[in-house]
């Protein structure tokens, strides 16, 4: 609440100043998510819901494929992709098919989107074609919220602009639990206490970083953001509790149990000038740095990795690397998320 001085008219300074509090109009509460099956942001999930997803991921992974196939048998799921993707698209597709669902892929380069169809119309069209859930990857932050509002279908955010990538944060969490904890099926607010997770690189443009920094501190982890000022503005630390900024990579590395390396997103730099040689000198994860400062830390990367840029080939392929485990966990987590989308009250079942 602010206090202002009233009646201090510079043109007519006769009245005495009166301090008074300002009570501004309130901000209306959010209506999102409209559909209980949606996963738009990691913030929509309670710790219970996260535990449920984790335990379903394990159960579905271990289930007989023929039994699993019946869970969403012949249900229709649309994958709507406005950006290229290898891991996310394939794992969502494999996850959906593992549960017996029919999937269809609509990508911006081979559809009416090229002809100028809006996201709303594409969404309504997919719904009319019988899609019961839409998995959306979009280059614009916030697009999944628009799609959910206009279709009221379960919408799964597979990455929106520079905003969020909630399934990536969940699969990262599962990977961290596998490496550092006994149980990978339940979480509580102290599950990751004492664990420092450093996210390194292009934080500004990273939806993976945003989802992780909003999720991991809720489980007790300390998240350290590390990168040069143009890629990591000071205000990033204000996004939520449990987030700190450390500009010095080696100092951050020295206290980390997990280090997540990010790709420089050339497609989002928007005129930002960055000296890549300087960047590598400051922030590249090399075998030398890893051995000297964090010999037992888990090395993660959401992919795609650029070998020789944010990390060396040796580190990517080394024993500390969990990069391919992350990919594997993607299928398990996405099975659980897709199942949830179609079996919560938003779905038909």
């Amino acid at each position, binding site marked *: 609440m602010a206090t*202002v001085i009233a009646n201090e*008219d510079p043109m007519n300074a006769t009245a005495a100043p009166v301090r008074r509090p*300002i009570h501004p*109009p309130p901000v*209306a509460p959010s209506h*999102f998510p409209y559909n209980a099956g949606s996963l738009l942001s990691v913030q929509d999930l309670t710790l219970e819901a996260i535990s449920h997803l984790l335990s379903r991921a394990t159960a579905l992974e271990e289930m007989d494929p023929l039994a699993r196939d019946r869970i969403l048998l012949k249900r229709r799921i649309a994958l709507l992709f406005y950006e290229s993707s290898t891991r996310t698209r394939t794992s969502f597709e494999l996850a959906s098919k593992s549960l017996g669902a029919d999937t269809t892929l609509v990508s911006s380069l081979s559809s009416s989107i090229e002809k100028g169809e809006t996201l*709303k119309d594409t969404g309504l069209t997919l719904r009319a074609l019988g899609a019961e859930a839409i998995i959306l990857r979009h280059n614009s932050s916030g697009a999944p919220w628009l799609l959910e509002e206009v279709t009221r279908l379960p919408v799964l955010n597979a990455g929106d*602009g520079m905003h969020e990538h909630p399934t990536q944060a969940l699969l990262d969490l599962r990977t961290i639990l596998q490496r550092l904890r006994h149980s990978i099926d339940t979480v509580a607010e102290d599950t990751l206490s004492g664990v420092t997770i450093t996210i390194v690189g292009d934080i500004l443009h990273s939806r993976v970083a945003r989802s992780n920094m909003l999720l991991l501190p809720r489980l007790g982890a300390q998240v350290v953001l590390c990168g040069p000022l143009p890629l990591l503005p000071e205000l990033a630390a204000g996004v939520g509790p449990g987030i700190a900024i450390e500009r010095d990579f080696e100092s951050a590395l020295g206290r980390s149990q997990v280090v997540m390396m990010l790709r420089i997103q050339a497609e989002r730099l928007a005129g930002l000038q960055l000296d890549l040689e300087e960047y590598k000198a400051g922030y590249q994860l090399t075998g030398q740095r890893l051995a000297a400062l964090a010999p037992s830390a888990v090395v993660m990367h959401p992919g795609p990795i650029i070998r020789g840029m944010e990390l060396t080939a040796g580190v990517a392929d080394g024993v500390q690397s969990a990069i391919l485990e992350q990919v594997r966990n993607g299928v398990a987590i996405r099975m659980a998320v897709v199942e949830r989308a179609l079996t919560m009250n938003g779905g038909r079942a």
Partner: protein
Amino acid sequence: MTALAIRNGHLIDPAAGIDAPKDILLKDGKVVEIAGPGKLKSANGAEVLDATGLTVAPGLVDIHVHLREPGQGYKETIATGTAAAAAGGFTSVAAMPNTIPVNDSPETTRWMLAPERNASIRVFPIGAATRGSKGEAINDFAALKSAGAVAVTDDGHPILKDGVMRETLAAAARVGLSVIQHAEDTRLTKGCSMNAGPMAFKLGLRGMPPEAESGLVERDIRLVSELRDARVHLHVAHTSTAAAVAAVRQARRNGLRVTCEVAPHHFLLTEEHVGLYSTHAKMNPPLRSAADRDAMIEAILDGVVDAIATDHAPHATHEKEVEFENAPNGITGLETALGLCLRWLHKEWKLPLGRVLSLLSAQPAALLGLKGRGTLTVGSFADVVVFDPKAEWTYRAADTRSKSRNTPFDGWTLQGKVRWTISEGRIAHRGNGQSSIKP
């Protein structure tokens, strides 16, 4: 034209210093008599409007609206925009030149003023400062003025080049026109869709730094002071940052002719109202931080702000129902301005009613030199708003007279219900269920 007598109302005319029960007689488009209740001498045969319990004030003046004609009649027309204005109590609106084509010619200015446009109230076109509002070649201000333009601006497209802005200020001053600047250093706002800050970072949106506004305001003030010409008048449109208001405040202390306006959304809302990508909270300048919003309130209360202006910017539903970054900037505002000002500036923050009305009529009219507007002295234009100052009501965007419904104020409680809006002696709007009484 029939004479119109407004009886038993409480007249508030800030410019004339009147705040008392008065009857008022309108004839041939002008105010012809003001007298105590029941004391009008020449009201015989006049149609009578009974304003018992109501406030009678000069018709409101909005110096910043986008009527979208010519060129974008699907968003708004001069007819629909002025109908919305009349419903909001406005009798004069100044129309920004970012039409298609840009209003940079006497022909377009005259086209906007033609009777075929069916305006409900008086429209005052503002001419483009530069050809096509491209910020390069200055237009013929004398010709624009004689066609009816009341100021010049490249609203929406700031004049960035120092030399062009300096020449615009000087040339406009020579013909007695004000220069209105949309203060945004667009070199700092490329690809941005909201205010820079923690909220933008969290939402993954590129943010416009407050310095993009204040930096250009400071540059413009420097140019005004360098010109050393008392006729030069810079008006800062839709001020939204504490730093920009501070710069205007300082310029005024230094005796420069620099004025500013604030839009209701900038003294009521903050970037928090963007919520989860609500495109009805997307405008330029963007909704700012709470500190900036509080600075707008402070500047209004302490008299630095010269006018409340809506920046009424209608857009079709399909244009706003897109990804946040792709949505056009702007919200409608003509129907909600008075009700928001009364509900918040007056009721909540205790700004006297007369000062609220002055910010909505006398001051903006004086600022653009609209003679005979914004006051109800004998001989002035018969531009009147009669409203119930106590009535609370809920605004419904679905009921708007505008062609567009892009407002963040749908469902908000407003205070002050317009009963009649009278434009040059003609009733331009009647509030719900009310009719005039024939004698």
